[in-house]
């Protein structure tokens, strides 16, 4: 679905303070898969993700999405093309001054969808993430997990083929993380959307990724397939913190 060929990206002008964020990475994301990119902070994961929808233009190499070479595209063509890829962020990046439905409506306004169809699509998307009842709230009134659901609904509004997730659960607690990963899995299974997740959390990868790439110091150091752990094995509620930390013996103290 997305393939990167020998892409490199560095920051900074002077030769001595140049930081090579991504160095000659080749990577293929299979259609319909959930692909995790894991590595420590500063490894270049987020830059690699931004290369996939060309939010960052690579210094060298090619970015190929659904058989199309994006590296040669003009800014206008890229703008059109980006609409086929949704994106969510660690800090959600919602418009605080628009309601939940207003936020989901934004990408549809950009594509010029008529008002009525827009309203229909917005309520469809909100229903999909389970937030129909919050449509008229402002993001400030929502919890972190709910904000990320809104962000997912917004990213899905234009029916993208790919969803890029930049540390989607890194500012959420374990239970909410589990919920959001459930939503992402649901997106992948019911809509067939290819998902790429950048994270530094091992659990996230273990829970939902089918393919894993490991990044260190701008290089792709490992790449392997993974059988996602059974969904029920994860952390369902705060009640089980004791169980998780102490094992089952801890329960006898209660």
């Amino acid at each position, binding site marked *: 679905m997305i393939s990167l060929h020998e892409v490199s990206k560095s920051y900074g002008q002077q030769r001595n303070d140049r930081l090579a964020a991504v160095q000659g990475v080749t990577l293929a994301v299979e259609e319909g898969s959930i692909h995790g990119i894991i590595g420590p902070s500063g490894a270049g994961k987020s830059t690699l993700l931004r290369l996939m*929808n060309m*939010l960052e233009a690579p210094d060298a190499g090619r970015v190929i999405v659904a058989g199309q070479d994006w590296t040669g595209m003009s800014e206008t063509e*890229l*703008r*059109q*093309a*980006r*609409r086929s*890829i*949704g*994106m969510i*962020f660690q*800090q*959600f*990046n*919602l*418009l*605080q*001054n*628009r309601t939940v439905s207003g936020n989901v409506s*934004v*990408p549809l*306004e*950009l594509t010029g969808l008529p008002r009525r169809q827009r309203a229909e699509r917005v309520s469809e998307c909100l229903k999909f993430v389970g937030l129909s009842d919050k449509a008229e709230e*402002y993001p*400030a009134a929502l919890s972190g997990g709910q904000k990320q659901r809104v962000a997912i609904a917004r990213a899905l509004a*234009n029916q993208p083929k790919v969803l*890029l997730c930049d540390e989607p659960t890194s500012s959420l607690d374990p239970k909410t993380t589990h919920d959001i990963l459930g939503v992402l899995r649901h997106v992948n299974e019911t809509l067939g959307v290819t998902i790429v997740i950048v994270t530094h959390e091992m659990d996230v990868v273990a829970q939902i990724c089918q393919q894993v790439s490991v990044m260190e110091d701008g290089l792709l150091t490992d790449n392997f397939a993974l059988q996602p752990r059974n969904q029920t094995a994860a952390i369902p509620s705060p009640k089980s913190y004791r169980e998780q930390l102490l094992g089952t013996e801890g329960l006898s103290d209660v």
Partner: protein
Amino acid sequence: MFDISVMLDSMIQYEAEIRKAIGQTFFMVGISVAAAILCGLPVGTLLFLCRKGQIYENHTWSWVLNSLVNIIRSFPFLLLVVFMIPLTRMIVGTAIGTLAASIPLAVVAIAIYARQVEQALLDVPRGVIEAARSMGASKLEMIVKFLYVEARSGLVLGLTTSTISFISYSTVMGIVGGGGIGDFAIRYGYQRFETELMTGVILLMIVLVQGIQYAGTTISRMLDKRS
């Protein structure tokens, strides 16, 4: 001794002049506010967008705009009015009167509000622009549908502060026959030793400024849904 009844009497005596002066102040400040919105907003937006790391990053433009805004703001305002006389004459055909006085006021209004706009836009989290880009928004859409939406309460507060400055600036416009409430206070109150009249006019201006600030704060709070 200061006497309130003397103050009221003299204000009633000069009611017609005071009304006229207030009208002139509203006219000059109105033109400045219009200039601030129509030109100051775009200039301030450009100031922001040309900064390092923003979507129109451009060192030359950034330098040119910054210099222009700083130069206009460094003039002692009275000297800017005098300095601009030839330009004012070119634009409105005369250098004296209320309309002519509005021209330098409008110029300074653009520079002042442009800075306020830049500041308001700097408060918008960078992630908002990144989200906009990921959705395939054009540059104009990023500005109108993202930046201005998130910065709107700051933009209103900035305009409020600016408007109050314009009122203050407009008080010296007597020098080119611009009139206005400040000029009235100086000529009738200060120069003719009618301290009560001067005080009365100052009180009027205090009420006016309080009113504007109150309106600005209220609107800004209504628009702000961030917390």
